[in-house]
């Protein structure tokens, strides 16, 4: 079956949102566009927009390939998605609050207790604690895929530290520099306001100890982290400090940063350091990336940590399969965005089914990320499937399985013109005094023909994503 293409329905029917773009595109010559593509790459390299690949010394810094053809969404399409996303992030925060307090949802029998207590992402240190403003997950990147005109699925709720937002902004910047005329012809909603929204959103959840205008900082593991460029980019765009663990200390119950003028208190930390490394006093004692004592300061109202520690329990792949129940439980409405039907291999019937249908399923590790611990059944060899089946039987609770979705395609620029490639979408959402959703997001595209893996670590690229105003 041919997957749904977001630009072209059949030979010459161009879908509505792409019509202006397509007219423009037909007038361009291939050589000129090829030159623009090279120009874009040079631009990314010069600005240093790179990501680090672990374990590859020579290619320590690599570019994520950028494709010039934008992914375009009509207003109505986006509005529907945005509504569903808003409902979902509200539910995620309510779920976290409930999990770390009375666990009504467990009592109601909607989510099994073992998935909470036995979960690595659950932090007992957070039990009974409510963060400033009652917000747990402030910054979310909801991964969404599309399979038909009206059929969208949420693939993952990245509720810990989603990355990629800098690419969303730089992709737009690049497109505007290279093809200003396109933005005159199409009314595209801006995404470059994201850092401004992020700053406001973080300032709105300052801790009780904060007096006056909150001081915000971005906490990075340092320049060797794969997303360092993004950390620096966000700090720069927000006009706040970019700090490392060694820059701050706990003094008199507050977190202070060491400046050239002495120690100054910090009110809100947007941390891009994982839970386990956040506070060596409370979690991994060998961590040098974190801030000793920050958890105690946090619990005494001396600082806001975004996202809160322990939010991983809500985007865990095992919890994911309960999202329809979770959304309904807290919002009282049916989920507006669908979940991908998910087989929990921990359950015997499901495991049997999954083992029998490996060739048509995608199997994922419950705690994995980056696409490393997964099996794409239809693309795997018989031998690979057998090897994976053995792992599955050994620790079934570690895996979930989903049908292979026929992800929608959007054309990319190739030598011979346009060629369809599979895409997904990560819109970025900010939760604070209100929910702020930036219209658009990061479109990741599998550059290899037929491939469904869009991860940048495995040959994926990105596209500028347009949401039209009308």
């Amino acid at each position, binding site marked *: 079956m041919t997957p749904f293409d977001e630009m072209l329905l059949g030979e010459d029917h161009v879908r509505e949102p792409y019509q202006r773009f397509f007219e423009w595109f037909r007038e361009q010559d291939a050589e000129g566009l090829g030159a623009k593509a090279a120009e874009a790459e040079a631009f990314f*390299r*010069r*600005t*240093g927009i790179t990501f680090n690949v672990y374990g590859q010394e020579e290619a320590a810094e690599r570019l994520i390939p950028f494709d010039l053809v934008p992914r375009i969404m009509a207003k109505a399409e986006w509005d529907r998605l945005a509504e569903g996303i808003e409902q979902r992030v509200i539910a995620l925060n309510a779920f976290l609050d409930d999990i770390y307090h009375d666990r009504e949802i467990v009592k109601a029998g909607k989510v099994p207790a073992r998935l909470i207590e036995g979960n690595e992402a659950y932090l007992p240190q957070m039990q009974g604690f409510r963060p400033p403003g009652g917000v747990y997950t402030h910054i979310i990147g909801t991964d969404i895929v599309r399979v038909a005109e009206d059929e969208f699925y949420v693939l993952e709720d990245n509720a810990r530290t989603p990355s990629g937002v800098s690419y969303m902004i730089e992709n737009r910047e690049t497109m505007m520099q290279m093809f200003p005329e396109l933005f005159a012809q199409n009314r595209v909603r801006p995404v470059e306001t994201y850092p401004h929204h992020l700053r406001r959103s973080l300032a709105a959840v300052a801790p009780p100890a904060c007096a006056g205008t909150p001081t915000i900082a971005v906490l990075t593991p*340092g*320049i060797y982290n794969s997303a*360092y460029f993004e950390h*620096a*980019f966000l*700090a*720069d765009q927000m*006009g706040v*400090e*970019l*700090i*490392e663990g*060694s*820059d701050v200390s706990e003094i008199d119950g507050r977190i202070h*940063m*060491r*400046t*050239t*003028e*002495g120690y*100054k208190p910090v009110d809100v930390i947007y941390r891009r350091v994982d839970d386990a490394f956040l506070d060596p006093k409370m979690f991994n004692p060998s961590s040098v990336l974190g801030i000793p004592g920050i958890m105690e300061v946090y619990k005494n109202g001396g600082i806001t940590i975004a996202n809160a520690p322990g939010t991983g329990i809500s985007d865990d792949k095992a919890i994911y399969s309960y999202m329809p129940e979770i959304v309904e439980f807290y919002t009282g409405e049916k989920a507006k965005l669908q979940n991908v039907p998910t087989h929990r291999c921990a359950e015997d019937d499901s495991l049997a089914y999954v083992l029998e249908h490996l060739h048509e399923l995608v199997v994922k590790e419950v705690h994995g990320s980056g696409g490393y611990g997964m099996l794409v059944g239809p693309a795997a060899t018989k031998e690979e499937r057998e090897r994976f089946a053995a792992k599955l039987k050994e620790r079934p609770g570690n895996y979930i399985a989903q049908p292979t979705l026929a992800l929608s395609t959007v054309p990319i620029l190739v030598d011979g013109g346009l060629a369809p490639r599979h895409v997904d979408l990560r819109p970025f959402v900010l939760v604070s005094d209100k929910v702020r959703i930036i219209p658009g997001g990061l479109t990741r595209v599998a550059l290899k023909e037929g491939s469904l893996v869009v991860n940048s670590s495995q040959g994926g690229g990105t596209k500028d994503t347009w949401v039209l105003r009308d």
Partner: protein
Amino acid sequence: MALLGRTANGLFWMFRYIERAENMARLVDAGMRISLTNLSDEADEWQSILVSAGVEAAYRAKYDDFDVEHVLDFMLCDRDNPSSVRASIDIARTNGRMVRTALTRELWETVNDSWLAIQQRLGKRITTRELPAVVDLVKRQSALMRGAFHSTMLRNEIFDFCNLGAFIERADNTARILDVKYWLLLPEHSQVGSALDNFQWVSILRSVSAHRAYAWEYDGEFRAVNIIDFLMLNRRMPRSLAFSYGMIEDSLKFLDRNYDTNHPCRQTASAINKRLTDLTVREIIDGGLHEFLEQFVMDNNRLAQEIGQNYRFYPGA
């Protein structure tokens, strides 16, 4: 907005290494010219160049000879030598990445661009034939970085920490160059005034890109007192010790005023600067040129450490 101590440290070292990269390239250039004249023992020349660069011990640990190819590779391309042009630019850019938020987009992109260009050029061994083009590339990239710095950066404390790094490094470099050849400038030697010596002096001046400027300032005659005056005390010469210390003292004064402080490092810098103002060339020679320069390099290092302490460059401060 407050400036992190670590950021100030990163800015300081970023500019020390930008300066160092250029100095290395220029030293190699000067050494090459001397060795091409066949007037002196080539090995001696390269050795003194390595001493000026402060990398002689590291070089000897790796090579037994002073083969020109080895020297070029060590000073330009070798990543094991942290002061090689390639390593210096690498460190400068790593620091730049660390302090990215403190830099203008123009400056960061120029540094990144220069890094790309130099990494690419120095990724393989450089032959003597290629050397002029390589030295030229390094000088031009340095000029671009400095230009982006001066034309786009706000004159605030960020600027001052960069400036301090550049001039501490430059003062160190000029003092070392002089110290390696100090005996050439001593009275008993300069009376000889042979052609060889003239050439040596030109090479010293060339290594700080000042052989033409010297001619403008001192009517073209090479006299020991004039060369010492030019490289140490002349405040119009941008690579002289006095010029560097004028910049250093200014930056530290701006910082003190900005923060409303009175840090010991400024007093240290003022004392060094005062000495460069009060002393005459004659007095320096009579007191021992070598001793003076040795003391100067130590004082300069001490000042760098003091700046780091006073402005909390490191944890625990």
